[in-house]
């Protein structure tokens, strides 16, 4: 008997309309856990680097995390993996909501799509009954609209639906997959779904998910619940509100947006507006949000309320979470009313709320600076808000300049030329980032931005405070109940960290400490992504209920796999390395591991080089960021080492210290 997981994947060949339920190997679970880990293994095995994102041979994998469907609080994430049309690397997107548990209850751990359907279809999974159904009547429909129509026509109000909107159908490179209150947005996975002719996946499950040691497991879940309660009642003092509590940033709850609106950049990540948050703005925005927000809502089995139902007068109701609240507003230099209105449309279209407004602001900046011209925007309204609605439609329909912009700022700039590249200034690995521009280099964030293959800082950071408290006594106090650290040394790192002077950034934390800190933060995120745990209760906030000390117990009692901290860390390292290997095989190298040029004003090239050199070595990668043969073998990834050698990515007799191949040699 399999515990926590079902032991079955669904293989769907969209070209031939063939569907098979395939038993999985429990050994793979032990090595790669599940979710992201096993997704990565499948992508490595079955999608060679020659495969274009829009090839029928690209896979689109919906993987439920290993512990989804069990009582583990907040464990509800679906990890969607494919090759991104935007970055050409492995796409890294996840969604909460209700989809993953439902899939588990339908007796499946993953749904793996290959091929391309000749006509638009949707997949209907009803426990053991699975069928591909015609979706031609859903063409062009919004994502929420689609979900409602499908539930009605199947007479299954409880079915969970993950659907694309028009943006996905038209292969916009930042199209999302929407699932009611949640979405998998980053990396353009909605475009791959659209390319495959798949409008939606619909699932209803009424089967059991078993746990290995029920009483032990329940005890662990109760402890997590109690700790969540404790943390809700005891926010961390001395940090800004969004860092004090648990959950995804509580954007739907809070009214005070002084920090975001004055510290993040507006427009095409250009302008910081100090003094923006006046009493009048605060009053207006509060009124807007209070009127619009009908309810704070949660994902499956989670007490945090990170989302909300939003009803703007005259517009259909939709659901929103997190930072999309502000991205359109700030991209357009507008107000919250506009932001919540345009987000309704964008959600139905199915667009990534990070990239989309930035692309639109980028286009308008090009127009302002004369790189694009008025005739590139025929019929565009004069007013600011109107121009954003205009661009939204042009992009989603891939009409005129919208067709160029639909590929994101990096590719659009290349096509437009004439100096446009300088305007695509906020990307990492061709992917739009948070509109954040800062002064002093932060060595921890430098490493995370460079090497974080999740491409999104909020999916990498957490655990270690972002800045030191001014007073040592406060730092010591913070450490008193900081039992989450994997090693006591982290407490000392923090206690000795000063805002100013010798022990301050960028030279403190030291290079070695930075490696430890980044590795810890990244490890926790990767564990979450295999188990299906939302980062909001785990790797993202400070002092979370899930950590390296209780996770092994969850896996042992839940999935029945003997686990301890070392074994878990090793497993996380294994599939983290495999993600890197997939990207390395697709051509990613050290040259790609860098933050946006203008992310920090004060840069330290020597220190940055030392940071990257040391971190690579720490991770078992050579100087060009390629995992070495020795480190691959240590992780049981011999097959990766063999392939690297076969392809000439590594040399057979390479010195395993990893310093023989220079960055220059490998860049081509």
């Amino acid at each position: 008997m399999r515990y926590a997981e079902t032991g079955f994947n669904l293989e769907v060949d969209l070209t031939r309309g063939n569907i098979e339920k395939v038993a999985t190997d429990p050994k793979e679970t032990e090595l790669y856990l599940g979710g992201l880990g096993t997704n990565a293994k499948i992508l490595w095995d079955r999608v060679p680097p020659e495969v274009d994102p829009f090839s029928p041979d690209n896979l689109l994998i919906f993987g439920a995390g290993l512990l989804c469907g069990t009582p583990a609080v907040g464990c509800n994430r679906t990890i969607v993996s494919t090759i991104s049309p935007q970055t050409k690397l492995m796409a890294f997107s996840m969604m909460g909501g209700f989809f993953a548990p439902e899939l588990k209850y339908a007796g499946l751990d993953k749904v793996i799509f290959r091929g391309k359907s000749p006509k638009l279809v949707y997949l209907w999974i009803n426990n053991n009954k699975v069928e591909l159904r015609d979706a031609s009547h859903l063409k062009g429909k919004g994502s929420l609209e689609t979900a409602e129509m499908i539930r009605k026509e199947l007479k299954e109000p409880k079915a969970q639906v993950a659907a694309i909107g028009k943006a996905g159908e038209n292969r916009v490179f930042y199209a999302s997959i929407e699932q009611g209150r949640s979405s998998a947005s980053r990396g353009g996975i909605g475009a791959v779904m659209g390319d495959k002719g798949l409008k939606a996946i619909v699932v209803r499950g009424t089967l059991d998910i078993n746990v290995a040691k029920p009483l032990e497991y329940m005890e662990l879940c109760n402890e997590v619940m109690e700790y969540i309660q404790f943390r809700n009642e005891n926010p961390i003092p001395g940090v800004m509100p969004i860092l004090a509590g648990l959950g995804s940033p509580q954007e739907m709850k809070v009214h005070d947006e002084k920090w975001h609106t004055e510290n993040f950049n507006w427009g095409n990540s250009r302008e910081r507006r100090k003094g923006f948050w006046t009493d009048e703005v605060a009053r207006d925005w509060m009124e807007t949000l209070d009127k619009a927000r009908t309810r704070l809502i949660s994902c499956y089995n989670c007490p945090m309320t990170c989302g909300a139902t939003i009803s703007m007068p005259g517009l259909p109701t939709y659901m929103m979470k997190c930072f999309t609240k502000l991205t359109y507003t700030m991209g357009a230099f507008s107000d919250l009313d506009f932001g919540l209105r345009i987000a309704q449309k964008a959600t139905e279209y199915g667009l990534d709320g990070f990239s989309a407004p930035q692309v639109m602001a980028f286009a308008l900046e090009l127009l302002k600076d004369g790189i694009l011209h008025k005739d590139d925007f025929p019929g565009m309204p004069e007013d600011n808000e109107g121009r954003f609605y205009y661009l939204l439609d042009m992009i989603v329909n891939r009409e005129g300049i919208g067709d160029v912009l639909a590929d994101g700022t990096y590719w659009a700039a290349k096509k437009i030329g004439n100096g446009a590249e300088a305007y695509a200034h906020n990307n990492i690995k061709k992917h739009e980032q948070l509109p954040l521009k800062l002064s002093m280099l932060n060595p921890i964030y430098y490493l995370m931005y460079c090497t974080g293959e999740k491409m999104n800082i909020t999916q990498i950071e957490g655990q270690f405070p972002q800045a030191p408290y001014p007073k040592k006594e406060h730092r010591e106090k913070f450490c008193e109940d900081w039992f989450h650290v994997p090693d006591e040394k982290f407490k000392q790192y923090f206690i000795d960290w000063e805002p100013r002077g010798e022990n301050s950034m960028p030279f403190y934390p030291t290079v070695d400490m930075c490696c430890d800190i980044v590795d810890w933060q990244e490890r926790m995120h990767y564990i979450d992504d295999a188990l299906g745990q939302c980062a909001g209760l785990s790797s993202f906030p400070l002092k979370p209920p899930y950590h390296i000390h209780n996770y092994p117990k969850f896996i042992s009692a839940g999935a029945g796999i003997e686990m301890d901290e070392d074994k878990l860390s090793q497993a996380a390292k294994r599939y983290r390395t495999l993600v890197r290997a997939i990207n390395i095989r697709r051509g990613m190298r050290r040259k790609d591991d860098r933050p946006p040029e203008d992310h920090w004003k004060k840069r330290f090239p020597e220190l940055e080089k030392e940071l990257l050199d040391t971190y690579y070595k720490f991770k078992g990668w050579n100087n060009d960021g390629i995992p070495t043969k020795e480190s691959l073998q240590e992780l049981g990834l011999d097959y990766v080492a063999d392939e690297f050698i076969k392809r000439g990515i590594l040399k057979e007799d390479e010195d395993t210290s990893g310093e023989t191949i220079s960055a220059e040699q490998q860049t081509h």
Partner: protein
Amino acid sequence: MTGDKTDKKTKIIKTIRIDVDKCNGCRACEMICSAFHSTPKYSSNNPARSRIRIIREPLRDLYVPVYGGEYTVAECAGRDKYTIDGKEYDECSFCRASCPSRDEFKEPDSGLPLKCDMCEGEEEPLCVKWCMHDALILEEREEEAVEDPEEAELEDLEIGLESLADKFGMDKIMDAVARMNQKD
């Protein structure tokens, strides 16, 4: 009968106070209910086996936690609609019955009815414990036990008769009753 009993009989009534405005729709109640009622306890999870259901329609902002109640063979003839705070609810949204008109409160494989037992043996029903937003609150109140004296006596009589029947056999009892009747 004196009509002046000094030791009134009371009983504890358990009620769950449901605040639909506080429900965040997470379905933790469904999850924990199904885990608690699995055998062995907590060994499996399946909200479709839960004895509490959230009748939810997120886009219409409907969230109604309902507990499994009595089993009924037939569905209601007419079902009314209620409008509360501008939101339209089907009468079924508040109904606890395990009924042919819907799949709530039925075992998914056997179709047998499911009924809330207030998690007997636990301090409080686990759905209440797991609802951190207090949409579900347990209330206990003492009430005077309303007993129908005739019914109670009948019950005593029946128990007595049954034991007599066990001892002497039904025929002898019937004979005795007939003789006693004639004497009157």
